[in-house]
């Protein structure tokens, strides 16, 4: 199986020296901006982005051209261009890599956007936890400003655009655009109701266009090569390519950029080299804490925004965590809920209280105290939070539970009916058993810290479950594979 990657957003990553603007310029850099300034009207720029079908790569997939057009039409003397570089999904690092490998692509695109919507100032909201990305952005801004590619009267066109960085302090909710803008203004990182949308009422209450790093990284090539060229990749409704950070139980962890419509199987078994140690694929988690788990029977679904939502997950920013048979799906749901419950800003009740209740229920289940009614309550509460939470964080936080409940209900049932974890990872539910493979070597009994293993030499041993503390020492010490867990 051989699937080729197509690099558009990552076209310069690993190719150019990101700290040398000459490399970027040699690859045609800043020509797209110059083309806009000298050969295209503002409406023509917006038109080409609309025709390209480019959609927001931050997760929701809103058409970028329409966003730009709304900001262009908004009446105001001051407008802003914002870049959302507050990448916070566990296991996702697409934006970091773009900023570290090709910072100018994002800067150039923001200037193009500024020209198109009539803004003079760009702000990049980047995580302070990405020091290298910050450093390379700073170098890039400095070098471009020195050459007159930013600043007053760019290339003698009369258009002026300046760029500055703003550092996020690590709150996940600040990836939500209205929280992000509050944070830039020095306020608490809390979201507000939409509408009004940022395109009309944004940063400092001025019309603002906000896009994600990867979305911007696509823009210069679209301007240079045209909308039809871009539409030559991907699917009808989701043109272009998408970068995924493929992590977890795969042989080749890394970044993958493929045309939309590529199947999960092609990515996981093809490009990422499959699952290590001959284990079986169980599920792929996409969309981070807002997404869901896709089981093996849907591996051949062509990936685009709509198909992932139909599967109960979402595109998200592009994190893809691959899980094998050793991963417990209840444990995975609990992992994400722990994350969202902690990151909830606390402004609205459904998210602040609801996620906490979900987490308590999940903890009860993984501790072995769950009852079957808990599953119905997870479903009901999850649906309520989705319907009533204020922002995208709460509206999507139950997804990891709902999708695993949908596809892996037997695992939940095993936890609540038999108080058993089939994957053997929920520590409080694990039961170690000694099978007939035991030769009676006594190693386990001698190493057990609570001396709960008994048996005569050369006879099969047994574990006293009432005293076992589930430390797993016997399991790892046994040289005959005689001890099983589950």
């Amino acid at each position: 199986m051989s699937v080729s990657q197509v690099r558009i957003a990552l076209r310069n990553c690993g190719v150019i020296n990101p700290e040398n603007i000459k490399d970027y310029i040699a690859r045609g850099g800043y020509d797209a901006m110059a083309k806009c300034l000298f050969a295209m009207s503002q409406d023509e720029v917006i038109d080409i982005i609309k025709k390209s079908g480019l959609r927001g790569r931050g997760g929701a997939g809103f058409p970028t051209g329409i966003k730009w057009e709304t900001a262009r039409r908004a009446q105001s003397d001051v407008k802003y261009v914002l870049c959302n570089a507050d990448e916070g999904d566990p296991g996702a690092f697409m934006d970091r890599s773009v900023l570290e490998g090709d910072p100018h692509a994002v800067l150039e695109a923001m200037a193009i956007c500024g020209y198109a919507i009539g803004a003079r100032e760009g702000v990049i909201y980047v995580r302070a936890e990405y020091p290298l990305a910050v450093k390379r952005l700073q170098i890039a801004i400095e070098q471009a400003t020195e050459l007159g590619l930013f600043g007053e009267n760019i290339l003698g066109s009369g258009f002026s655009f300046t760029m500055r960085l703003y550092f996020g302090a690590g709150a996940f909710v600040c990836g939500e655009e209205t929280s992000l803008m509050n944070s830039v203004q020095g306020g608490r990182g809390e979201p507000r109701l939409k509408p009004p949308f940022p395109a009309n009422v944004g940063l400092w209450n001025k019309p603002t266009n906000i896009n994600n790093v990867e979305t911007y990284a696509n823009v210069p090539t679209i301007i240079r090569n045209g909308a039809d060229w871009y539409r030559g990749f991907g699917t009808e409704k989701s043109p272009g390519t998408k970068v995924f950070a493929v992590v977890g139980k795969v042989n080749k962890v890394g970044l993958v950029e493929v045309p939309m419509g590529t199947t999960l199987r092609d990515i996981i078994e093809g490009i990422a080299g499959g699952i290590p140690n001959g284990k079986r694929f169980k599920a792929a988690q996409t969309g981070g804490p807002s997404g869901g788990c896709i089981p093996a029977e849907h591996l051949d679904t062509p990936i685009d925004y709509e198909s992932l939502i139909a599967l109960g997950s979402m595109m998200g920013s592009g994190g893809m965590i691959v899980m094998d048979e050793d991963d417990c799906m209840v444990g995975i749901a609990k992992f994400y809920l722990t994350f969202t419950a902690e990151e909830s800003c606390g402004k609205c009740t459904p998210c602040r209280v609801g996620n906490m209740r979900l987490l308590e229920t999940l903890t009860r289940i993984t501790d072995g105290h769950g009852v079957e009614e808990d599953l119905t309550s997870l479903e009901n509460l999850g649906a309520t939070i989705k319907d009533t939470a204020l922002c995208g964080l709460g509206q999507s936080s139950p997804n990891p539970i709902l999708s695993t409940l949908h596809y892996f209900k037997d695992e939940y049932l095993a936890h609540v009916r038999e108080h058993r974890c089939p994957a053997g990872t929920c520590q409080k539910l694990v039961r170690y058993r000694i099978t007939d493979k035991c030769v009676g070597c006594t190693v386990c009994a001698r190493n057990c810290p609570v001396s709960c293993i008994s048996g005569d030499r050369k006879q099969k041993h047994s574990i006293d479950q009432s005293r076992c503390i589930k430390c797993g020492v016997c399991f790892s010490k046994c040289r005959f594979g005689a001890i099983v867990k589950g």
Partner: protein
Amino acid sequence: MKLSSWEALKQYREDTKDEVSLLNPESTKIILAVGEATCGIAAGSKKIAAVLQEESKKMGLDNVEIIPTGCYGCCYAEPMVEVRIPGQAPVHYGYVNEEAAKKIIAEHIVKGIIVDKNVLRVEVTST
């Protein structure tokens, strides 16, 4: 220096083409591009860059330039080094430890023998 027109930008591109680190058939410069994104640095690429520098100095190679690049996507195979010799197809190396770095200089750069063991084949359509 401020560029004052689109023409000036194009001229700048032309004027600096010998200073860039991309593969240039007309140049005599050999480029060793070391993956120095967070993934590469975490895997030890700064050390590998230093070894490459030291080894090429030892061999008296004055046409070798070592530059940092971003992530090529193969985080699993970091540290990575891409060898760009004018007139030849670029070669990507993965899992480059100190020993492999020394070999890259002594065998690939000096003798023209590719260090097969560390060659990484990635199918990528560049745009």
